[in-house]
């Protein structure tokens, strides 16, 4: 039993499990636009059901995040933005081939969600979820080399941008057909349940992906089998240029209930809120209560890719969302706790500059490698364990059990 998680469950025992709110108190900034106001900025279909609005729970949040955790959440978001900003500049200089996709403004979603996962949990991030790779321990130089198609990138130049997963970190890389990874994460969870292992799988999907069949197939399957899987719906208002009102008639978080499990909505620009919601979903999953759909409402502040001028986004909408920048919010919290934000930023900038230099110095791949590695040879090696920096796991010996994905003896029978 995990001590911190036990506290979570006790604190929340009286809640309606079907209508979970998981929004920590806003600690410190009166100037922030309240989360409830976001509804007005979110073009929802007229007949959509009301969005559950988080109210906050002062008794819970401080128990989960130490000051060091809150600084680490900030540091990882700043690192994600710094890497992507630098990569965008490199793209414009012709150093990054193809196109470039970033998660500017959405850093809280991948960082907050991945931060709630244990080392033996498995995850499938998307193209705006670089933060998840950083949480799991992928070095910035390898990511920048990946963008540049270098031999030292995670895929050695075989794939580009955020289309990668470092198997050693417990991460399976995405494909561009969205949301295929929802089925994959469901299968990971199925294996965990089959082997009676206390682990969860987590994947992200976008608002556009909710229209495809794999969203339904995965949600239905996970609901039928009550699997330990967390689906994070990263609602960033636009699928390329298509707004929500052209994507669905009912907010897809409402669909979770139809599949037999809870759907919750959180402020996707509040990293601690995302963390809390996913932590709670993980607790539910480990308790055998099945999947959770966590809708993180956010805004894609850049174009779909580097070429996209976003003419289709009203400037007022961007301006409103800019006031809720997830990094600035976390900076205010950390500053209020006495943290030196400037020092943190300077350290991250230096780290990224070193990583850029390292990536630029790395060789391009040998063309002969293009035809190698299509098939695996020898014994298949499963995903390994990744970093899990949240302090809650340091308290919990069980979650740190090493060993990767070997089957538990006799568990399958």
């Amino acid at each position, binding site marked *: 039993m995990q001590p911190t998680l036990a506290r979570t469950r006790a604190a929340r025992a009286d809640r309606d499990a079907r209508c979970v709110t998981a929004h920590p108190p806003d600690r410190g900034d009166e100037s922030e636009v309240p989360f409830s106001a976001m509804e007005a900025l979110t073009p929802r279909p007229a007949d959509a059901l009301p969005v559950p609005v988080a109210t906050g729970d002062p008794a819970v949040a401080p128990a989960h995040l130490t000051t060091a955790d809150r600084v680490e959440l900030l540091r990882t978001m700043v690192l994600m933005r710094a890497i992507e900003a630098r990569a965008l500049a490199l793209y414009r200089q012709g150093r990054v081939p193809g196109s470039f996709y970033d998660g500017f403004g959405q850093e809280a979603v991948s960082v907050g969600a991945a931060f709630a996962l244990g080392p033996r949990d498995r995850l499938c991030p998307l193209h705006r979820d670089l933060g998840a790779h950083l949480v799991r321990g992928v070095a910035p130089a390898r990511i920048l080399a990946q963008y540049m198609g270098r031999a030292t990138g995670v895929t050695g130049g075989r794939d580009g941008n955020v*289309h990668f997963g470092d198997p050693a970190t417990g991460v399976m890389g995405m494909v561009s057909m969205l949301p295929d990874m929802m*089925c994959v994460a*469901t299968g990971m969870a199925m294996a965990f349940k*089959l082997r009676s292992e206390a682990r969860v799988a987590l994947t992200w999907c976008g608002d556009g992906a909710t229209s495809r069949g794999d969203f339904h197939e995965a949600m239905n*399957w996970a609901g039928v089998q009550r699997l330990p899987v967390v689906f994070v719906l990263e609602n960033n208002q636009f699928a390329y240029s298509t707004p929500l009102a052209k994507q669905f008639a009912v907010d897809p978080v409402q669909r979770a209930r139809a599949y037999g499990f809870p759907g919750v909505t959180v402020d996707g620009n509040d990293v601690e809120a995302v963390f809390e919601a996913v932590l709670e979903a993980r607790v539910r999953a480990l308790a055998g209560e099945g999947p959770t759909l966590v809708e993180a409402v956010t805004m894609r502040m850049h174009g779909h890719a580097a070429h996209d001028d976003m003419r289709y986004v009203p400037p007022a909408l961007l301006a409103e969302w800019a006031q809720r920048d997830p990094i600035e919010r976390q900076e205010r919290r950390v500053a209020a706790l006495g943290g030196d934000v400037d020092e943190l930023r300077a350290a991250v900038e230096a780290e990224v500059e070193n990583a850029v230099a390292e990536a630029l110095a790395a060789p391009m791949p040998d063309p002969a490698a293009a035809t190698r590695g299509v098939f695996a040879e020898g*014994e298949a090696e*499963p995903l390994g364990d990744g970093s899990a920096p949240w302090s809650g796991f340091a308290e919990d010996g069980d979650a740190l059990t090493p060993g990767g994905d*070997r089957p538990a003896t006799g568990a399958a029978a």
Partner: protein
Amino acid sequence: MPTMTYLEAISDALREQLRADERVFVMGEDVGAFGGAFKVTDGFVEEFGEQRVIDTPLAESAIIGTAVGAAVVGMRPVCEMQFADFVSCGFDQLVNVAGKTHYRFGLAVPIVVRLPSGGGFSGGPFHSQNPEAWFMHAPGIKVLAPSTAEDAKGLLTAAIHDPNPVVFLEHKHLYRRVKGEVSSGLYETPMTARIAREGSDLTVIAYGAMVHAALEATEELDASVEILDLRSLVPLDTEAILTSVAKTSKVLIVDEANETCAAGAQVAALIAERAFEQLDGPIRRVATPDVPIPFSPPLEQAVLPSVERIRDACRDLLDY
């Protein structure tokens, strides 16, 4: 050695793998309590339990997608598509997720997708297809198509042991028609071609049910006809193909699949490119024309390669 049908041999391979390796499980539509549409997994749920013989929702994309997820965390899933035709619904997961993962970042995806394939039973356009060429064209997927009971067991065993996604075509027409001696215990059949009958005047290249059609068609010909059973389409045994063609100098290639870009088209291209100097006649093909497989028996028989069509093509080539 016990005698088994092709279907029993497939069941035997699965059962032995489930007994030998706790990472192996089977899943698909109606594979549990009902034992599968063709009864390949009959009695499995009683022996192995519902957790390892999983009745899934009707969701082919999720069947293959969840298999991928389970595989990358250490399991060895064997999925059944109720009919090969339905793999079109899972095509994306197989081609884009399973097939490309190892190339992209070195993560092996050891899954097997069983496809009951082929026509001849008035199955109509959606229960008769031979979709093997779709997957030959997609890098990273192995494609197997046994014709005998012994090879069905050995190749399925090899497929489950393989660290890659494997598409396993089991021809429905062979399920109960083909019998043979099958070794008990675990054994692997290599993913190479097999000479089904030796000959020196003409080579007929086929796989799956067409191997039997080719054997029958050439039985009473006044010539020495070699029948090469490919068994594996990916990897393709180019050496066996070229060796046989060099020996006979004449070649007929038979596919039950639709003609354009079929497995046989690839074999023909290989021979044209690498064995042109050894040929004493044109490369000939017999395949299903590019039409959906019709329902009514006279229509279906009009398009599927028949023993007569194969025999006529052999005679033409022998006379050339």
